[in-house]
């Protein structure tokens, strides 16, 4: 094995840079992770509320259709015609009775079952499909589908454990905290094209260490400081996490000034209404970032709720899809506050625009260093939950799950 595909022995606190750089690594990920035994976020139930509604999405490179059938069930299947492999659905979404491939008009129902083949019996007794051709023997691969609080997940693998087992009880509870008992409404969708390997973003999401150091905006307005009350939950297999913080009156903030960290300043807002959010959950929790291995994120930053989906496009290119959420139960004032706080996140977000470029800094910084390693030793060597966020435990957790899934 060449030196630059060897992982430092037994380690999740050292990550070799070749893992972000090599085409054969991405090929293995497509098979072992994206088409493997993992649950992948597909869409929101709120995006396909009616019979006949559908959305298209991706499991890595694999194109997928998610559709609600005439009985109201949600189905997901490969967006690939069983005939010659063309895309079956070409739009981001819509409403339809069935899907017809544009190439040769093979027709599928809302569950991906083949229902019709053009000129099946030929023309004037000539041509056509052979007598032994059976529609039911041909269809795109179907995904298993599971939902939780309006989130739709899918997996191609029979080996993926049930969704709630995969997430773990603590993560399920934290999803319910944000979404249960409410009716999500999409406020907007944006795609951020990241100039880096997808794993540099999934690491970033789990990295509670960087948030208050890179994102000055966060720290100054006490949306999130490591000195705030908070903690980290890492699921048993390592792959899923929650980082949270809460307002605590009179909390110490001196560590930032003492260490002369750039994150301390006297910067003030001209319109502070941006941060005058409303108490939504009754727990003073201003921030909860939740990730599900490999590529799903549910975010609560004050009253800004969003889901994020990570789709690799190439070794060094990644699409980050943001869906901003409100709820049908919102008052007009609450809705305005959510729209206002959307300024915090996304490609132009006060506290997240840096995440769009920092992955590119690593991609470029570590070019030519495939045989070197990143160091993840903040807070020790394990991937356990903790009551501090001055740790890289959830990043190590990602690599624990990653190594288990890929065999690297």
């Amino acid at each position: 094995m060449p030196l630059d595909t060897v992982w430092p022995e037994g380690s999740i606190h050292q990550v070799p840079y070749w893992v972000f750089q090599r085409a054969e690594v991405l090929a293995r990920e497509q098979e072992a992770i994206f088409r493997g035994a993992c649950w992948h976020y597909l869409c929101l139930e709120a995006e396909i509320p009616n019979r006949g509604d559908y959305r298209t999405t991706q499991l890595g490179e694999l194109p997928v259709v998610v559709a609600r059938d005439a009985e109201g069930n949600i189905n997901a299947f490969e967006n690939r015609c069983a005939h010659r492999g063309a895309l079956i659905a070409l739009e981001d979404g819509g409403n339809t009775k069935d899907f017809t491939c544009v190439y040769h008009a093979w027709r599928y129902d809302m569950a991906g079952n083949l229902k019709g083949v053009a000129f099946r019996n030929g023309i004037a007794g000539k041509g056509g499909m052979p007598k032994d051709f059976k529609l039911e023997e041909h269809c795109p691969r179907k995904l298993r589908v599971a939902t939780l609080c309006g989130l739709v997940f899918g997996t191609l693998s029979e080996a993926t454990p049930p969704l709630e087992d995969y997430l773990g009880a603590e993560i399920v509870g934290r999803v319910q905290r944000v979404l249960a008992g409410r009716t999500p409404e999409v406020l907007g969708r944006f795609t951020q094209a990241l100039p880096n390997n997808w794993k540099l973003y999934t690491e970033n999401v789990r990295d509670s260490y960087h948030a208050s150091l890179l994102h000055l905006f966060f720290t100054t307005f006490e949306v999130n400081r490591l000195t705030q009350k908070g903690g980290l939950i890492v699921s048993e297999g390592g792959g899923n996490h929650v980082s949270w913080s809460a307002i605590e009156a009179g909390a110490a903030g001196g560590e930032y000034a003492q260490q002369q960290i750039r994150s301390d300043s006297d910067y003030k807002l001209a319109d502070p209404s941006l941060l005058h959010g409303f108490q939504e959950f009754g727990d003073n929790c201003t921030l909860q970032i939740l990730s599900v291995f490999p590529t799903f994120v549910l975010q609560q930053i004050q009253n800004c709720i969003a889901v994020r989906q990570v789709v690799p496009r190439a070794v060094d290119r990644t699409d980050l899809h943001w869906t901003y959420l409100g709820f049908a139960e919102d008052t007009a004032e609450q809705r305005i506050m959510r729209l206002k706080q959307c300024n915090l996140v996304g490609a132009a977000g006060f506290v997240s625009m840096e995440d769009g470029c920092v992955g590119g800094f690593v991609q470029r910084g570590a070019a030519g260093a495939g045989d070197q390693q990143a160091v993840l030793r903040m807070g020790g060597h394990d991937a356990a939950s903790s009551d501090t966020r001055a740790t890289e435990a959830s990043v190590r957790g990602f690599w624990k799950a990653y190594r288990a899934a890929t065999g690297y």
Partner: protein
Amino acid sequence: MLNEIHGFQAAYARCIDDNRLEGWPDFFLADGRYRLTTADNHRRGLQAGLIWANSRAMLQDRISALRQANIYERHGYRHILGLPLVEPQADGTARAETPFMVARIMRDGTTDLFATGRYLDIFARDAAGALKLQERVVVCDSSRIDTLLAIPL
């Protein structure tokens, strides 16, 4: 008013492209609105923006955050604006639609077509009679933003 709007749009583009961003909020009324979104969201009537402001002070905060808080690689824009289509309104305001293309020039010289789209504007006069934006909705044609959007469009 048409000539005035022509001059206004040219001054707006130069303000951003010359990196005189502190002057950008002054193109708006004190209670002016600015929203930056995509054609897909706009068509569907979805209200969220990549940038969403309902006061000039929020725009000032954008600029002070860019100057003092946010981290990004040094870059600049070049706006090329098309001809505004202006529709004067009975109440003395005017609606205008102006297409744009914006190139992004990175510190290493890399120059890309960063965004195309249109400004959907409502122009009004402030107490002193100066022409200002009561509302600007920036509708980007693409739903994809490369890396980040720091400097406003």
